[in-house]
């Protein structure tokens, strides 16, 4: 196949001392910025970009591509060990990773699961990128505002799976998530909403400080509540050997990793969706499949779905960037600016005019996947030492991490204020058994849904049938949406009429 020949050509480009060095440096930096809450891939790439303006373009993109990609690995570390997601795509990794590390007392296995599924997802994403190449980007083009609207509505129904036993609580928090997400500038009219005359609110509430507060700072307050100075995880088997996954663990993590990898790649290609949406969707999809333990209680399947999807999406997002010059995510937009600064012309001719650049980057992603995996596995024993630190020492450390992360994401105290407020609210919610996952999901998806839905209605002059039934993709997704919404109703009717008896308790 021609694409594989070009991939090998890409490897020949990468295998120079300079490019390998850039790849290694990018991977290490990606792991570091990913593990540091608040920085994330967007800020990491943005911070490093000005330093690369004088680089050779291929070397520069290899370094930044490796940083972006390996950031997905790093994000899981603090999510699993501290319950503070290093980056937004790792939010759902924390939901199962932290309980697996602390409650199930399998921190090494939780990290190992995250690394293995990241690797699987990444390889799937890269292989799809190589095989389909520009065709993958063309597929993304088929998703216009109408198709995205229906897809996001399907995704929003997954809130139903995240709310747990109390739908009223889940809906309430979802509405709060939507409300907070709607603060800031209305993209369609350019007018501010809910800014209360505060200049900082004009730009809206950033996701990173919001999630650090809701998840991390709230967790910190809970730890302070516990008072007793206990070591909050196991102290034995904190070695690589003691962290190895069993054959049964592998059996559990592989199917969700493959599913989430395929889905994450395609979500990464979609306009504006990105790795965070991919991990949320994959996690919601996993809810529809069988998991050995309920998701949210430390299930391997949950970590695998989230981590595999975000790595696959990171790989998939390079398809529209390279094939069409269209960024699939915020980080992609920064990389696009980089292409222009390096003197390249991003657009449909990039693969044709700059094959060394395009295929060199794709080849480097494979290498950075291996490098990031090797480093991630190697530092597991070091990371696990965090769990030996007594709570009285951990609390100030986590507090500093929360403050630094919130500040770093916005370069201002506004991020810290957002973190503190959302932290207190998150603590109150958790204390009263309100799960904050639906709020975070709504916060991520609602702006995308609003933007696409309003564009779809403008384009169709408000014709609902045009939105839901204008293309084959819309029709299929609308059918899925109807089935998802109708399923609980039909199920209830069947139970009430005695035609169906549910099994005792399933995940």
């Amino acid at each position: 196949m021609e694409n594989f020949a070009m991939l090998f050509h890409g490897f020949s480009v990468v295998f120079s001392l300079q490019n390998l060095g850039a790849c290694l440096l990018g991977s290490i930096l990606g792991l570091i910025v990913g593990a540091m809450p608040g920085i994330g891939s967007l800020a990491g790439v943005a911070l490093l970009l000005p330093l690369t303006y004088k680089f050779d373009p291929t070397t520069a993109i290899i370094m930044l591509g490796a940083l972006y990609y390996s950031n997905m690995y790093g994000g899981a570390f603090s999510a699993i060990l501290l319950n503070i997601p290093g980056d937004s795509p790792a939010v759902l990794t924390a939901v199962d990773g932290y309980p697996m590390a602390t409650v199930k007392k399998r921190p090494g296995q939780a990290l190992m699961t995250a690394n293995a599924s990241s690797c699987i997802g990444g390889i799937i994403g890269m292989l799809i990128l190589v095989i389909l190449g520009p065709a993958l980007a063309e597929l993304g083009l088929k998703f216009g505002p109408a198709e995205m609207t229906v897809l996001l509505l399907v995704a929003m129904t997954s809130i139903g799976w995240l709310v747990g036993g109390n739908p009223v609580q889940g809906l309430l928090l979802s509405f709060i998530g939507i409300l907070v997400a709607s603060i800031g500038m209305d993209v369609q009219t350019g007018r501010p909403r809910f800014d209360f005359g505060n200049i900082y609110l004009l730009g809206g509430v950033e996701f990173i400080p919001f999630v650090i507060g809701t998840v991390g700072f709230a967790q910190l307050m809970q730890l302070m509540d516990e008072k007793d100075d206990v070591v909050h995880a196991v102290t034995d088997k904190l070695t690589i050997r003691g962290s190895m996954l069993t054959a049964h663990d592998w059996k559990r993590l592989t199917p969700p990793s493959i599913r989430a990898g395929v889905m994450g790649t395609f979500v990464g290609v979609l306009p504006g969706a990105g790795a965070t949406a991919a991990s949320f969707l994959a996690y919601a999809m996993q809810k529809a499949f069988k998991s050995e333990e309920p998701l949210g209680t430390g299930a391997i399947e949950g970590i695998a779905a989230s981590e595999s999807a975000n790595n696959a999406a990171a790989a998939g997002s390079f398809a529209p960037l390279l094939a069409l010059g269209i960024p699939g995510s915020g980080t992609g937009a920064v990389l696009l600016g980089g292409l222009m600064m390096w003197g390249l012309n991003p657009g449909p001719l990039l693969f044709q005019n700059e094959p060394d650049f395009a295929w060199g980057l794709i080849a480097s992603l494979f290498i950075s996947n291996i490098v990031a995996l090797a480093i991630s596995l190697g530092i597991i024993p070091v990371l696990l030492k965090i769990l030996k630190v007594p709570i009285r020492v951990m609390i100030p450390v986590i507090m500093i991490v929360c403050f630094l992360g919130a500040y770093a994401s916005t370069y201002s105290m506004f991020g810290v204020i957002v973190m503190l407020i959302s932290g207190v609210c998150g603590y109150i919610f958790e204390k009263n058994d309100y799960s904050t996952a639906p709020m975070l999901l709504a916060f991520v998806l609602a702006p995308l849904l609003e933007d696409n839905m309003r564009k779809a209605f403008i384009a169709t002059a408000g014709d609902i049938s045009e939105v839901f039934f204008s293309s084959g993709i819309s029709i299929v997704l609308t059918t899925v949406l109807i089935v998802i919404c109708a399923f609980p109703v039909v199920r209830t009717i069947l139970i009430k009429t005695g035609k169906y008896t549910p099994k005792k308790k399933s995940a």
Partner: protein
Amino acid sequence: MKRRIAIVIMLVAALAVYAGGSSEGGDGAFTPSRDVTWTCTSNPGGGSDIFTQEIKDIIMTHGISDANIVIDYVTDGGGEVGRLNVSRTTGPRANHTLLTFNSGDLMPMCLNTDNRIENFTPIALMAVDNHLILTGDLSKYKTFQDVLDALAAGERIVIAGSKGDDIETYNELIAELGVTANQFAYTTNDSTSTAITALLGGHVDLVLGKPAACEQYILAGRMTPIVALAEERFDTDLLKDTPSITEFGYEAVDVPNWRGVVAPKAMSDAAADFWSEVLRQVSETEDWLVGYVERNGLVPQYLDREATVQYMADFQADYLQKIGKDK
């Protein structure tokens, strides 16, 4: 006595610090004496960043000034926090602070805040960008005449574009064509690339964009420019065959997207003249004219300090009148 001596020493020290910071020579000329903070209200990699980096690079490589320029990205509040901070900068720092300021910054600033160009010291205008309308493979309108015929026949057309000056250009366009926003509908996107995505996928009929953002798609045959909205055709090989809207019997409707530099209101005249001269030298270099202006399909238009003050004030007055905030 000791107390008086101490007060005199403190006063002398304070004056020395102030003079050291402002570094205006005996002849009133200004030379930078500390790091220069150049605020950019978009993220690295964005259009404003590329503009800023390019100027910084030319200043350094051509030795126009040996000042150490540090680019500070302040994106809070959609950039309004950065603009407000710069406008309020005082003291010696004011002479060492610059801000990348475009028409796309002025419009939301006037629309959503009370900050105005009078709170800044305009330094220079560097270039102007113009708009054009493009069609795609999947669009049924292949020429601007097709668009006009369709509108005359009552058909509904959807055009996609970006924020800021694109919206203003669209508003002027429908006013000039005499159609309603419902018949010639506009979808606002975060960036032109998102609008292009919609066109390439066949989800909208047309795209309103600027040459730099569309060039590669035109070269690849994925998009075709059908009309330039300025008075005259573009003066580039790629776009010289694209008719101007005036050739169809309409007035030019372009809202120029200018790119300029401003400084804090408290900047001294000497410092403002210095920076205006630095930017004039930048605007005359080959690196600027070819490497930035031509490459991005812009129109080179350097205006000195005095002319920039007038240009930006007039632009703001027109805009405030349009949005009904001129009183």
